[in-house]
């Protein structure tokens, strides 16, 4: 008798347990929302007027061509119908200047809600640079600006040279994950007279020569860069081995100015 009772109790408890599992299962049919993960480095977030402005980069920001990404969140939602305009500014105390920027105000954000732009930082500074981000929200027709301080590390990818007329040229080698073999190589050329207005130079003659100073040789098969748009010149470089390479750039402007610079790159 005792055995039978025990068996019945066990059966009942088991049935209740199964029922409980079924009920609980029915109440969790909605999948948990996976948070959006952004494969970028968050530089900083600034909040203003219930807007969270997030600035992203591909990694540590260094001198040279630097893609920047901005995401705007409002009341927990990512906005996709705004205009974003970035304006880097360098405060050197008595002197201010900006740097060349590539951006398109009309461009739509990507699937993560990131607005793409790029700046060519011309000098390194831990505290001097701020990226001004102006946002216009079309839904409520409001415009505001935030300033995000950033640290810009050293690199040799951009150099500022003066010609005989004191016009400054910004010569940039677009950094890349250089590998052995033929690589696309991109140079950028901007001109400025005042440090605020930067004009892309598309009519220069650009040539380069890769060498390995530690080896004393170069390579063959390199393709002379040709101008595309926005001051960019695209060519091909043949890295025959891994290691430290030097790219000797020579630019001849339309008025005959010769500008040169050596870039150090590492091929892996």
């Amino acid at each position, binding site marked *: 008798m005792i055995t039978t009772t025990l068996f019945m109790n066990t059966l009942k408890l088991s049935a209740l347990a199964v029922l409980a599992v079924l009920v609980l299962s029915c109440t969790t049919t909605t999948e948990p929302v996976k948070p959006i993960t952004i494969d970028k480095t968050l530089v900083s977030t600034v909040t203003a007027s219930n807007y969270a402005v997030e600035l992203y980069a591909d990694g540590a920001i260094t001198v040279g061509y630097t893609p920047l990404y901005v995401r705007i969140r409002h009341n927990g939602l990512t906005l996709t119908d705004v205009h974003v305009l970035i304006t880097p500014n360098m405060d050197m105390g008595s002197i201010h200047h900006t740097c060349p920027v590539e951006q398109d105000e009309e461009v739509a954000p990507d699937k993560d809600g990131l607005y793409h732009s790029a700046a060519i930082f011309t000098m390194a500074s831990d505290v001097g640079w701020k990226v001004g981000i102006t946002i216009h929200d079309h839904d409520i027709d409001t415009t505001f600006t935030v300033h995000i301080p950033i640290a810009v590390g050293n690199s040799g990818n951009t150099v500022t040279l003066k010609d005989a007329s004191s016009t400054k040229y910004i010569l940039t080698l677009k950094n890349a994950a250089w*590998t*052995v*073999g*033929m690589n696309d190589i991109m140079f950028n050329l901007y001109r400025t007279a005042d440090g605020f207005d930067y004009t892309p130079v598309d009519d220069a003659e650009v040539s380069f020569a890769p*060498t*390995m100073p*530690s*080896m*004393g*040789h*170069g*390579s*063959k*098969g*390199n393709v002379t860069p040709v101008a595309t748009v926005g001051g960019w010149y695209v060519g*091909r470089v*043949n*890295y*025959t*081995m*891994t*290691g*430290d390479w030097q790219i000797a750039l020579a630019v001849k402007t339309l008025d005959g100015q010769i500008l040169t610079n050596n870039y150090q790159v*590492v091929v892996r």
Partner: protein
Amino acid sequence: MSPLPTIVFLYVVTGVAAIAQDTLKTITVRTVVVEADPYSKPWRMDRPLSASSSVDDLMRLGGLSLIQRANGFAGEASMLGLRGGQMNTSIDGMKIHAACVDKMDPSTAYIELDNLSSMDVSSDATDLRYGQNLGGSVNFSLKQPTLATSLSSIVSMSTESNAALRRFRVDLSGGTETLGLRAGYTMRSADNMRAGDGQYISLSGFTKHNVQVGGLWKLSDRDALSATFIADVASDVGYPALIMDTRKADALIGAITWRSAWSPSINTSAKLYANSVTHTMDDYDRPLSQIASRAFMPNMHMPMLGTTHVFGLLAEGSIASSDNLIRTVIDVTYLDARATMSMIPLDTSVSTMQMTNIGDARVATAGVSASWEHSIDCDLSVRVGTRVDVSSRTLADASFRSVLGGYYPGMSLDRTAVALSVNVGAFYTVAEGVQLWTVVARSERMPTHLEMYGFWLYDPQANIVTIGRPDLANEKALSLDIGSTFRTDDMKLSVSGSMRHIDNYIAPVPSTDVPTQGQPPTRYMGSIGGADLMGFNANATVSITPWCSMQASVLGTWGTGITINDPLPLIAPMQGMVRAVVGDPMLQGEIIVTAAVAQSRASRLILPEDNTASWARADVLLAWMPLSQLRIQFACTNLFDTFYHEHTSINNMPSRGRSLNVGFRAVL
């Protein structure tokens, strides 16, 4: 016992030597057969005097020149001015490709004299069985197990005073009526050698181990299956004339062969084989002062790794009748070759670099050769031979393709090459014992994978860096060989000559490029136009008495790049040899004198080299057999301690000075 019939150093010129069938005449033209097995004959004109013999010594006996880069180790064969891809070197018909892009490990480095039964040298472009060549073919025949022999072992040891060369060999063999087995192990080792001027050459030692295992299974009266496996490991091989040394070089060679006698006149064989070679070299043993001051890539270590893998199928067949012999060979190979180099600067602030010298080159080649020998009458025979090869070449390393492709924009790195060679020969018996022969050949060879795809390869003698060219055209040669032999019971004389014109001679094309920062100039492989080669060879063997025989030979080769008017490089000057053997099998003495005239025809453009002085050396040997199972040998090589270097010795590396050696062989 007359020694003449047992002299194994055979110049079978115009042979018409009967084999197999009673009436069959097989024609071997200007072929040297050197027996490698010292135990097969009581006399020993088959082997060099050195008690620590190597394949290199055997090749010298066969009339080859050796391009020497180390201390009696891994010499690169050359004959009649042909070398590299112009020659075909095979082992039982198998192709083994060097893994080192700097030619430190020719295929012959991976076999031992003890692995071989004989070496066949053909210098008239008629031997196309195992590959295209312009007139030079060397095939080494491996020892095979024997059936119906009792179990026996041989222990052989020797040592030399110079470089403390020591050699140990143990051999075990035996067989039943249907199954034969054979296994052998050889160890050779040397310290730094001493040259004739008394100076020790640092980093000239080596150590080498070789194991060969073979089996023979008689399937039926007509069929037999054999298998051979060779493992060869060399370590710490010094190359004093180069800028690096071999740290380790190993090879695994395996083959399975099925032989079948379909009838007394029809024989076939099919061989499947594979081999793998790995070669590592570095300059870690070199003093830092040398690394800092060298011309090429100073101030850095540069270890290199090279590998090759070869897979092959070799099918041979022959049909014989009383007046005809037809032979065909189907020869299929697949090669995979890679080589990389690291550069580790002594300045640790500079990044380590890595370069690919051969980026996974894949070469698949299929060839068919056929020959027909026909006896028109008892005095006149003719021979016709041909071979055609189709070869597909590519690079599988995408990164390397990108690098090399950058050097040749618009040029395809993939290629299918075809080569066709034909030859015709006539052999006429003028009178009893007197034969005349002639061969006309049109030969063609495809460029090697190194010539096509080699990147940044350094030639230490010419002090140039070379880069391959994927669209290289085939080298083509037109040659005429003539010769005569006179033979009596006690004497044999032979003389032969050859003329060869080569089109599209492949070489690093001389350039006027100005090197940067004192670095060696870079050259690109290409055609330097036409080249002419001429040569002669005369031999005499005389049995003076039943206990005394003499042999003499003289040979010379001249080569000129006629388009650029420059002597062809690495051609040995005229040289001769006189050899006398006295005694009987119980007690035998031997003296050999070798001499070469000065070489003043040095290349100045193609591969710059310098002139070489004349030299002469003498070697002596005394061999004693107190028991039929025991042989004791004493020898002295370079008796007068002559200080010299051969013209084909890279960077004038001197030859070994006087060396006393002693050894024994015991049959247990």
